């Protein structure tokens, strides 16, 4: 039993904290919310130089060869800094899927490009039904010549508007609810018939509607090769788990910032001649927040550890995403109560976290969803 980080992880955390403090101030976060792309190519280039764009990829594909758990340390810091842009979509989702399920050729072709900062990707999975399970995938890819024609609509697709390539979950066969017949397909985001429109969301996090009208994709672009046509669901299922925990890592980082900022405010803010942090009611709120954040961290890393070890990890992930989803939102809500009126102004940075906590809560499935998964795992 060792609940601490190793030296390499501590160094990664420190260098990430230093870099993001300098390169990702809240001004950038706010500017990117308003910015039409929400993507800073300068920052992207710097992250490529640091090796972050290939951090979890094996070295032979231009990566740094870090494990999933190490990766979560970096994501935690990114969540703390509210790093804007397509990092998560490109590395934690598309990159992870390519690493896990791509052919050798695909890995050799795509991963070095991502690592070098020359390929931005997005994962086009969910649709207007808002479901992550097989029944949520209705978009069709119909065989045509040496490839497919893709027709349908994807929704909640982060960063599709700045992506060079979309990894699309498409139905190539099977009935609408079946897990068979789902294919993961690389589609050129600039191909004729593909249109990505960023939408207004609670977190200003550049989620897009992506429409495909007779968009062409080559057969060679089936993730894992043509033999994997129709066999994409298990890949998505595994990616679901990793994506949920990667998201939890960012949430834990955000929650830690909210806790620290709120405790500092309680020390500084004076009313009735005393810092409000000396009042029991405020102390108890802060104690509750600290417990939520620490619990969230350890249950998140437990799942990250299990995934890192290649274990099935369904139970660990379900527990973590359920708990972290609620804990982060609760932490933000309590932080608002401690801050009083200043906290709910747009000028205050707390709201940046509160809005993202709500979006992250439902991404990959909320607490209600994962409690049901836990119930199944319990044999109920």
């Amino acid at each position, binding site marked *: 039993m060792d*609940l601490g980080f190793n030296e390499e992880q501590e160094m990664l955390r420190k260098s990430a904290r230093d870099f993001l403090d300098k390169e990702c101030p809240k001004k950038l976060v706010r500017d990117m919310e308003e910015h039409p792309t929400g993507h800073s190519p300068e920052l992207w280039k710097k992250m490529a130089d640091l090796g972050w764009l290939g951090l979890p990829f094996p070295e032979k594909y231009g990566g740094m060869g870090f494990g999933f758990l190490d990766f979560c340390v970096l994501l935690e810091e990114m969540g703390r800094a509210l790093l804007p842009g397509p990092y998560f979509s490109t590395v934690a989702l598309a990159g992870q899927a390519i690493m896990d399920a791509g052919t050798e050729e695909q890995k050799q072709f795509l991963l070095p490009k991502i690592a070098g900062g020359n390929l931005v990707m997005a994962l086009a999975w969910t649709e207007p039904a808002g479901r992550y399970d097989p029944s949520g995938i209705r978009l069709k890819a119909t065989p045509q010549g040496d490839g497919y024609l893709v027709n349908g609509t994807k929704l909640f697709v982060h960063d599709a508007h700045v992506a060079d390539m979309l990894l699309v979950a498409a139905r190539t066969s099977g009935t609408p609810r079946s897990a068979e017949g789902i294919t993961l397909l690389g589609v050129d985001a600039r191909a004729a018939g593909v249109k990505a429109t960023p939408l207004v969301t609670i977190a200003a996090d550049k989620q897009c509607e992506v429409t495909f009208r007779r968009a062409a994709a080559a057969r060679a672009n089936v993730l894992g090769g043509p033999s994997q046509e129709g066999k994409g669901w298990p890949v998505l299922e595994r990616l679901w788990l990793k994506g949920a925990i990667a998201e939890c890592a960012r949430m834990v980082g955000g929650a830690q910032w909210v806790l620290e900022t709120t405790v500092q405010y309680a020390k500084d803010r004076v009313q009735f001649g005393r810092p409000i942090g000396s009042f029991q009611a405020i102390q108890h709120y802060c*104690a509750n927040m600290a*417990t939520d954040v*620490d619990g969230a961290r*350890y249950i998140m890393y437990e799942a990250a550890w299990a995934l890192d070890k290649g274990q099935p990890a369904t139970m660990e992930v379900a527990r973590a995403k359920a708990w972290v989803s609620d804990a982060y939102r609760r932490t933000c809500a309590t932080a608002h109560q401690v801050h009083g009126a200043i906290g709910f102004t747009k000028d205050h940075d707390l709201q940046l976290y509160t809005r993202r906590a709500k979006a992250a809560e439902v991404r990959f499935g909320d607490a*209600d969803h994962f*409690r*049901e998964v836990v119930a199944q795992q319990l044999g*109920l």
Partner: protein
Amino acid sequence: MEYRFSPEEEAFRQELVAFIKKELPPGWVGGMDDSSSEDWAIAQQMRQKLAARGWLTLAWPREYGGMGASFMQQVIFTEEMAYNRCPGKDVFGVRMLGPTLIIYGTEEQKRRHLGGIARGEVVWCQGFSEPGAGSDLASLSTRAVEDGDDFVVNGQKVWTSGAHHADWMFLLVRTDPNVPKHKGISYLLVDMKSPGVTVRPLVYMAGYHAFNEVYFDNVRVPRSHLVGEKNQGWYVAMATLNFERSGVEWSAMARHTHEEIVDYARAVRRNGRPLSKDPLVRAKLAESAIEIEVSKLLAYRIAWMQSQGRVPDAESSMAKAFGTELLQRLTLTGLQIMGLPSVMAAGSRWAPLQGRLQRHYLRSFGYTIEAGTSEVQRMLIATRGLGLPR
């Protein structure tokens, strides 16, 4: 990071569990009533069997007959004892008085008392709380006045667990009322058979007798039974050896209870289907399972910190408050799932789980009070952990 125990530690766990299962009566579901002579006898037998294996004092230093066990072994011991509802653990003798004597006791006191604790033969109780001194323990007012070679003790203690079984008590008394409250307290060892000691039962609302009031009427305690210096008793009482203090027992108890509720929900049908098919039941039991895991990890963190040579502080408060409140929520959830039958008490043939859950529910009100209320724990998290001003 490593979220699992080593193979050697797991082997210890298996050996311990095999021992517990072998030594407890067949079909053991946990003691129902500490005051019943039957359950008390089982507890004493288990204590002596644990002592014979050296496990009762596994955390003690080897020079005092302990095993010098690692923090991880200790946490496993605590976890399995609690999960298996194994009686016989000795909080007062082994965890509290033993370390105090090892640090502050005279050679005579060590020779006289440590062996009896280690062998599981002598039963100790703790005389700290008073009617007027609860969370503010240092305001205690039981008086001890020197008279020749003795102290003469007058006053009252309360919530004294197990005083009705105890041979001896370690007792905090006021020996100087004219100095700041922490500086006028002394630590005495009292033979419970001394003239003037009266034990009166306090019956817990679940119906059993675990605590007592203890009255002292001119009780003479030899001066040789003073531990540490006179008027230094507060600091003597604060002394602890660096034992595992993870609080893992809360999650372990909860896990067993949760399993019983899950089994109940799968077995019992309502409205034509098993309770376990009800979405609300599923959601509640899933949430409890998640909380149990969080509680366990908050406890493991403490043992891990200790294994790194660090001293947990607010972390312990966090684990205690979270774990005990979890047990309250869990037992309530279980009773709510049972519905109307949950009112049936132990002894009724209609009582679900023979009334265990109902008792556990009633018992759980005490958990958030004993050993520091949840409010005190939160105050400690805020001030010592987060640095908020007092």
